[in-house]
């Protein structure tokens, strides 16, 4: 068995090429999975006997909510790696994840409000699930603002890494909020420990949309980290060799 050298791609110069090769595949997967998921969720799946067609919001709401939490954990993870090993690429990855995470969190809240109105009779309640998800949005916004406020990129890496790591405890709070507190928000429909409480076709649509969101997030984050590498490594010899002035792709 050949040993994989995980540090090989820790150099931004090498990761830049790898990410570039991955972007089109992730983007194609995202497009195909989105079409498939939308076809199942909006066209094929029958209506729900209780919530009627308002339940179709689930095909965006749940995948976006999952991504909002997964991306925050990924951002905190790469922030920690960047801080501990003083690794530039890890910090750049965290920086690249934040905007997409913030958008997913906004979409989770937005679709939740549009779902809450017809089913609960209100756009918003200060319930534990909704409030902790709103705090997640503020954490993302705080992270991005802090980065934007510090000119020196390496100092911005360290300061924002601390914020990301301190805020990560909010993710299990979001996840378990529906068990720990009495919430208006319902419990999990899908869990690893028991059978899902929804029809097979609805579950299938939701999982396909979740995979689509994953593929989209990978495509966008790899594309963004490439731009961040180029912005931050401007003047580096390898980058000038790759993109001579006036000959950019």
């Amino acid at each position, binding site marked *: 068995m050949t040993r994989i050298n995980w540090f090989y791609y820790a150099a931004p110069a090498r990761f830049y090429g790898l990410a570039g090769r991955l972007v089109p595949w992730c983007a194609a997967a995202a497009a195909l999975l989105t079409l498939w998921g*939308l076809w*199942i969720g*909006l*066209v*094929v*799946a*029958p*209506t729900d006997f209780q919530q*009627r*067609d*308002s339940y*179709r*919001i689930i095909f*965006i*709401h749940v995948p*976006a909510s999952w991504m909002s939490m997964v991306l925050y954990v990924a951002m905190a993870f790469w922030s920690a790696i960047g801080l501990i090993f003083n690794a530039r690429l890890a910090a750049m990855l965290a920086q690249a994840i934040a*905007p*997409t995470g913030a*958008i997913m969190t*906004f*979409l989770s809240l*937005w*679709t939740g409000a*549009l*779902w809450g*109105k*017809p089913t609960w009779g209100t756009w918003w309640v200060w319930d534990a699930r909704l409030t902790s998800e709103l705090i997640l949005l503020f954490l993302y916004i705080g992270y991005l603002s802090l980065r934007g406020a510090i000119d020196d990129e390496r100092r911005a890496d360290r300061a924002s890494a601390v914020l990301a790591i301190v805020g990560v405890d909010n993710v299990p709070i979001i996840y378990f909020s529906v068990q720990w507190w009495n919430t208006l928000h319902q419990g999990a429909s899908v869990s690893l420990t028991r059978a899902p409480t929804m029809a*097979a*076709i609805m579950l*299938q649509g939701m999982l396909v949309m979740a995979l689509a969101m994953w593929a*989209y997030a990978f495509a*966008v984050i790899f*594309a*963004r980290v490439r*731009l961040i590498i*180029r*912005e931050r490594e*401007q003047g580096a010899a390898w980058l000038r060799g790759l993109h001579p*002035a*006036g000959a*950019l792709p």
Partner: protein
Amino acid sequence: MTLAPYWSSASDFLAMGGYGLYVWGSFGVTALALLMELLALRGRRRRLEDEG
């Protein structure tokens, strides 16, 4: 598990059983937000290229 469309007509599809505003408000804003993210990325790349 059948893959035949559930809807009998296009107007049924758009009405979403009376929940059209909520359903299309969710899917539409999601599409808009992701499109804006992609355009922002393209703008960022162009700025980088203009600087040379």
